[in-house]
């Protein structure tokens, strides 16, 4: 009984907030609606007995969404949605596709004869997860690690325009970065002015 209440109390807001993500005209609201939705997902995961992963989802999504909000505000055509905005294209097609996918998935969910529950969860699922990541799933872990590292490098390369030669001089001999006066990304000192 209590389980059902908790489920609906988390799943309902999760879906509702997900809908609101694309209905809000304000970037901040959309981002935080997404956060609310994903926090509910984290709560559900905890409910399913995966305490560690649930809390990690909460932690990571909070950090991600907070950062996302910044990029939203920076880059959106109409950043704050001060005016009602509609930035949709092929709305009908998308509705048909996603509706269709939902019907398919729901049918699959309802019609599949799900196997019986086999076995019991480990006494400490977190420990079990750790041991499998460091054992049988080592390859997954290594791939993830490499992927994350590649992401760090790739994103920095993509996002920044200046390399160490810009910061430390052509022979890299400068003891201090040339843009120190402006913090980490001070193009003004480098290019001596505002903007290209």
């Amino acid at each position, binding site marked *: 009984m209590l389980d059902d209440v908790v489920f609906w109390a988390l799943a309902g807001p999760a879906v509702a907030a997900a809908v609101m993500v694309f209905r809000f005209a*304000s970037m*901040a*609201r959309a981002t*935080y609606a997404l*956060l609310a939705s994903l926090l509910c997902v984290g709560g559900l995961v905890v409910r399913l007995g995966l*305490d*560690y992963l649930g*809390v*990690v989802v*909460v*932690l990571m999504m*909070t*950090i991600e*969404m*907070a*950062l996302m*909000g*910044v990029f939203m505000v920076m880059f959106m055509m109409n950043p704050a949605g*001060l005016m009602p905005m509609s930035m949709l294209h092929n709305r009908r097609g998308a509705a048909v596709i996603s509706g269709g996918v939902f019907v398919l998935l729901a049918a699959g969910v309802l019609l599949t004869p799900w196997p019986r529950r086999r076995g019991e969860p480990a006494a*400490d699922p*977190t420990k079990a997860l750790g041991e499998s990541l460091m054992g049988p799933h080592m390859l997954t872990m290594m791939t993830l690690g490499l992927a994350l590292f590649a992401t760090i490098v790739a994103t920095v390369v993509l996002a920044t325009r200046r390399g160490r030669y810009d910061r430390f001089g052509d022979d890299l001999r400068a003891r201090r970065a040339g843009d120190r006066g*402006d*913090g*980490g990304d001070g193009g003004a000192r480098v290019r001596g002015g505002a903007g290209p």
Partner: protein
Amino acid sequence: MADTAPLWAVVLLPFALVAAAAVVAGLDAVLTAAAERGRGGRPLRAAPAPLRTGLRLLGGQPRRTTAGDPWLGRIGIALVPVAAVLAGAVLPWGFRAVTDPVVGVVWFNAMEALAWAAVWLAGWGPNSALSLIGGYRFLAQGLAYELPHMFAITTAALGAESLRVGEVVAAQRGLWFAVWMPAAFAVFLLSALAMAFWGPFDHPLGRDAAGGAAAEHAGVDRLVLLAGRWLLLVVTAGFSVPLFLGGGHGPWLPAWAWTLLKTAAVLGLLVAGRRLLPTLRMERYLEFAWTVLVPLTLLQALVVAVVVLNR
């Protein structure tokens, strides 16, 4: 070792935290008065100043700004103390916490992150440039402190081989973690300040930006935001006790007294230490955090891991 406290502790927790926050704020006011008026100015009489300010704000009117998003802002403001209290729920008093989940350490960190996102909302809500600048500053600050902070917390959990706060305390029955993980402890203290956006990390609410994220909040809104900040400081400083200072372990005195003493000592150290440093601006601090603190905490974690494997 760690039991879950009775139900009344749930009710008591927020009040206890608020009381502690008021005492710490009073201590800060006394030290501020000592700097402003000198010894002859009877600085001790400034102790109730934060309470009087709180009462004034309680009676004052909140205000609105043009084309703001007051509700989003208020959600952010309310989240700050809520996150602090939720994080405080895993704080053991002696050996008992309100709750001691298996992943208490991660829970604590997640709640802090929530407060982090909340301050941005509080800065965004009023639709004012300076207040938004304050909100952004806290995000930048998070990028600087969050990673070393996580590694420091992880190191303590690693030393205890558990994410349960109670077991981390139990693992320090003999030797405090602060003794053999000094780098992690120091980094944790730094990030405790950063997390509460207080002290040398008060840039998000900096006076130079007219109060930053708090610039436009008045009345109860302001009270909740500022009180939430003190709560965060108390909770994060308090968390260093079970993580690094052996929790309730200690001779002669009962466990709760040791917790109280150690928490008071950490808070006193932080409040007094604040006088030594100007506000750290993130465009300068970030480089230090990533090139010094992150490798340092990683090394610390490595050392601890090797020790744990060999014992």
